[in-house]
């Protein structure tokens, strides 16, 4: 029996896979970039399905809004846009390696006993995840706010700081690299 969620999942799956294939095979880089945006949006859809709404929003903001645009800029700025996405000499090794890895991953995914949480607890998880951002108290919980924000500046404060440093470094590095030599 096919639920609404399943239908959405399948649609998203087909869209994302087709778009991803498009990204890597289409000759025109500009079109690749547009298809890449489609992949990002489909992944955002998956996030919603997985009740990670906050992440979905972040995905759309950063990937679709920023990164895709950056790519398009880059393609525009490097002149040989249209004939850029040529395959190199590693076609057969690349396909075989990827296929092998894919088979391996699928086998691993199917054969492993993941011991998922019991069906009964699913709702609880979903609501906890959904409310992660808002922090509204739930029936099974005694109302403490346990949002992502608290996790980020609490338990994960060190990685958080490290990532901020990384971003700063990337910012400076990007500037230094992109700056023309003379000035």
């Amino acid at each position, binding site marked *: 029996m096919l639920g609404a969620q399943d239908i959405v999942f399948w649609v998203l799956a087909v869209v994302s896979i087709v778009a991803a294939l498009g990204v890597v095979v289409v000759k025109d880089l500009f079109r690749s970039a547009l298809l890449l945006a489609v992949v990002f949006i489909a992944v955002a859809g998956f996030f919603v399905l997985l009740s990670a709404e906050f992440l979905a929003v972040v995905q759309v903001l950063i990937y679709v809004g920023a990164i895709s645009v950056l790519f398009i800029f880059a393609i525009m700025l490097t002149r040989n846009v249209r004939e850029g996405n040529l395959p*190199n000499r*590693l076609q057969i*090794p*690349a396909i075989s*390696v*990827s296929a*092998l*890895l894919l088979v*391996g*991953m699928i*086998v*691993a995914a199917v*054969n492993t006993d993941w011991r998922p949480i019991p069906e009964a607890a699913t709702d609880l998880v979903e609501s906890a995840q959904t409310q992660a951002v808002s922090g509204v108290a739930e029936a099974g919980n005694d109302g403490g706010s346990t949002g992502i924000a608290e996790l980020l500046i609490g338990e994960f404060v060190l990685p958080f700081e490290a990532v901020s440093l990384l971003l700063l470094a990337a910012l400076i590095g990007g500037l230094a690299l992109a700056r023309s030599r003379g000035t």
Partner: protein
Amino acid sequence: MVAESLAWAIFLMPLLSFLLISLVIRPFLNRIPQLSGYLLIAALVVALVLSVLVLVRSNEGADLAFPAHTWLDLGDAAIQIGLLLDPVTCIMVVVVTGVSLLVQIYSLGYMKDDPGISRYFAYMSLFTASMLGLVLSANIVQLYAFWELVGLSSYLLIGFWHDRPSAAAAAKKAFIITRIGDVGFLLAIIYLFYHGPQFAAQGLNPLHIPDIWQAAQPLATGGAVLGGTALTLVCLGIFAGAAGKSGQFPLHSWLPDAMEGPTPVSALIHAATMVAAGVFLVARFFPLFQEARDAMMVVALVGGFTAFAAATLGLVMDDIKRVMAYSTISQLGYMMAALGLGAFGPALFHLFTHAFFKALLFLGAGSVNHAAGTFNMRYMGGLRRQMPWTYALLLVGGLSLVGIVPLAGFWSKDEIITAAWLGEGPVDPRVALAVFVLLVAAALLTAFYTFRMIFLTFHGDFRGGGARELQDAEAEGIPAPTAVTDEVHLAESPRVMVAPMLVLAIAAALAGYLANPQWVKELLGIPGHWFSYYVESALTYGHAETAPFNWPVAVISTVVALAGIGLAWLVYAQRRPSADTGEVLETARSPETDETQGSADETAHGHEHAALAPLRSEPLAKAGPVHTLLYRKYFIDELYEGLVVKHVFYRYFAGLTDWLDRNLVDGIVDLSAWLTRQIGRLVAQLQTGQVQFYGAVIVMGAVLILVGYLAFGAGIGE
């Protein structure tokens, strides 16, 4: 009683002189050239007085045994040092200090103008100290140490004029050849130490010389601590050392070359003292040899053969010092033969007299050299007019060497020949007879070459000296010997040189009366046969008795000696040098030099005076190949140096080893390095620089890990 410190002082005086010269005079006071000489002479005077004192005390039967001192104590490897003042030592000490003193006085004159005079006296001090240490040693390791040190001083003094390549080469040769013998000596010492437990069982020390004597004696229970093959091996080892030092065949070839050193050095080291150390060594261990008959026979035969063979070589040498050198080898052969025949007293007596007359002969040769500027007798002649003293003194020395009554050499040589004649010693009578024949033949040759030397040097007309020799060498295009100078001033040597020779001549003439003739009961307070009795009293073990005077032998040896002199007179003194002018006889030169000589002669003839004509022909050359054989010293130098050392050893053996080291042993190392580099180069091909290729390889690795995990690691997570 003599205090131990006084006995040590005999050794320490020259050592002190060495230290003062090398640490104070040579660095700071080198501007006063004779100072070091005076210092050494003063030290030697003190040492001589002490030596005579010790000798007198010893003769009076004083107890001169001193306890040994520990030098190195490592459990059973204890090495002690001490003094052994037996009669043999006492005699040797007097000889060494006495001759050394005279030679140093002579050196003051002979080395006067040499810039290295301080160095010379430093080396001489070192030598005298080492030689005294050698004869005084009570421990065999101590003896070996001084044994090597005299070798060192000999090396330094032969190579004293180190800017002469021939001197440097001769010094090296002397050291290495004696060292070959020394290895035998060292092995004997090691072998003695090896028997340490057996020695210790009898309460003996395997390195203490009197204990070694005792060990060789038969025990009451039968056998000996050191007996049979072991004893023979030890004796042969010791004899190897002695043969090296005393220039016995086949280790004799260094001694003639050693004449490259200053003449006083030759007189002291290579005639009177150091070369006699080999004889001393065998005498020192005589109680061992007596128990080892095989070793005795070897000593006797080697000695006899050397006495004869060296004398034959002495016949043809042109260099006055080389004649003397072969004579020394020959006389040392006499002493060795005597020891081998069991004639302990005669051997030492000959050592004693030989020290005087041979030192005298060498000093005389030095005196002649001072006048003529060369050692080559072909360019001398007629010197008796200018140098009457030298001539007279050399004549005394020569007659003593030849063994003419009543000079010292007669008495000592006669005792040795008598011992061989009687053949009463421990060796087989047939061996003794063979030795007797060799020794008598050697006596004939000795007389001949000695007077050949005297006639060539002092008789006839003067033939130009060093100046002429340089001229000829230039004309023939061959390098002149480095010792030749063009300073020819025909005159008697200064008094400082003649006086020591005079003292030696007196000793060479009269020393015989210390032993013989036995029918004289007492002469000037010295009892008849004193020397032999005294020396033989050193033999605490075993027994040796000098044979009484033997008329037939005395007659035979005198006749033989006179015959030799007569022959020499016929061949050399009858000749008029002018008759030789232009007469080109085949002198025994190597074929290579012959070719150059032919053309050179013609140019040389142009400016030749009759009075200045060098002795071009050698009467003995008529013997043809025999002369060549002798002149080239039986080709032994060619065999040793040319064939064995240069080719077989250096070029082939060492060359091959060196090649293998560079190419095989190191080659394997370099090969493995090369292989590593090649493998690296091969693997580096994978380093394409293509990021995506690297990525693919990484993913491949990830796949492998994944597959591995899926296939084998199913249980890992459990």
